[in-house]
């Protein structure tokens, strides 16, 4: 299946979040080894070490997750340089608050929740820019070149374009579920809404996606 966690993780180089299934033995084993980026030290162990001021653990955690966090933030703020600045801030918060991490949720869920907060704060500081970009993204370009027109016949491309035209709220939930592999509960924790609202928001995001596709001549049979 496309979306099995292990497979997607291998494909993207994103370490599987296996920490929840850790046995005490494997945890102890990982604690006893010297820390290098090539070993799959559980995220929770890294956080423990970061709380103790371990700079190398911070490097490993950053290497493991910064690309995904960057992409999540970039999809919200849409400016690469802003997204880069924000991920530095996200991981700096991790450095400062690691001793407060209680392990009730996965480290990636915690990271994305911090990232989301940073991204929304940044957007609040420049609301006009974001509005302009969103509006621009939603407007169809009538002056397609023949190459673009041919390209648009590719359903996958059109689908990606439509995904990019969704509202930030809808983009966010789709990314969290499909790309960041977050469960209903984890997505609820990151976004700060009830689990049922996550399902409803996902439903409407997908419905909107279907409408955008329909406008571009692609009928999927749903909704």
């Amino acid at each position: 299946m496309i979306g099995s966690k292990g497979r997607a993780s291998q494909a993207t180089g994103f370490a599987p979040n296996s920490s929840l299934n850790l046995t005490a033995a494997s945890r102890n084993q990982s604690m006893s080894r010297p820390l290098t980026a090539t070993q799959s030290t559980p995220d929770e162990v890294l956080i423990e070490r970061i709380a103790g001021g371990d700079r190398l653990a911070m490097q490993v955690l950053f290497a493991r997750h910064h690309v995904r966090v960057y992409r999540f933030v970039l999809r919200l703020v849409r400016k690469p340089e802003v997204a880069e600045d924000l991920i530095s801030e996200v991981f700096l918060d991790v450095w400062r608050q690691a001793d407060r991490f209680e392990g009730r949720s996965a480290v990636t869920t915690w990271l994305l929740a911090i990232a989301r907060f940073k991204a929304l704060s940044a957007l609040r500081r420049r609301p006009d820019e974001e509005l302009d970009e969103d509006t621009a993204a939603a407007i169809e370009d009538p002056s397609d070149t023949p190459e673009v027109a041919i390209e648009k016949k590719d359903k996958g491309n059109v689908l990606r374009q439509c995904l990019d035209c969704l509202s930030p709220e809808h983009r966010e939930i789709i990314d969290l579920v499909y790309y960041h592999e977050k469960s209903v509960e984890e997505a609820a924790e990151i976004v700060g809404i009830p689990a049922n609202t996550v399902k409803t928001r996902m439903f409407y995001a997908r419905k909107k996606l279907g409408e955008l596709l329909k406008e571009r001549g692609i009928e999927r049979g749903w909704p």
Partner: protein
Amino acid sequence: MMMVAEERAPGRRDIEDLLPWHAAGTLNHRDAVRVEEALARDPDLAHHFEVVREELAATINLNETLGAPSARAMEKLFTAIDAEPPRARSVGSAFTQQIIDFFSRLTPRTVAWAAAAAALAIVVQAGMLANVYLGQGNSFEVAGVQQAQRGALGEASRADALIRFAPQASADDVTRFLESYKATVVDGPMQGGVYRLRIVNMSKDDLNRIIAQMQENRAVVGFIGTAQ
């Protein structure tokens, strides 16, 4: 179409809502089984699931084309970390880390020998305790000798009395009474509701005086006298 579908299969909307998570592989086992069963019996739902899988693939593709941040992000982060004030580690976590570090330095063979030695020590200790316990329980003569020795040594320092409490005395009254004289009940009730009372650090003369005092407390004491 949704309404028609829902009329056809009650609860289908619930299953449809779970399809994105099923495609992503993030449903719990119970829900995953529910969805699989529904997909197997409902071709429309199976078609919908294919739509979801297309969305999933497109979303992954879109995100993967976003690129990665430059090295500037990491440099900026570690410059900021270096500028942070040094943190004071808590004593507890430092101690825990020391223990972890200590055990992590040992080889598996060393740990195995240490565990075996610890297990042996526990067995030996348990054996010694059992021996002492069983020895006390079975050797009545030895215990009797010990008691006789204790009696000889402690005769002057403690005294016993026999007491029958007044019928109207409550448990609280009796407790307060015993505490006030630092006395304890060591035997009883014997025939006639009589108890043996022990008062420590007391000569026989003093005991007689105390017993006279006790007798005056009619609310608690029915009868009291020195014991042999």
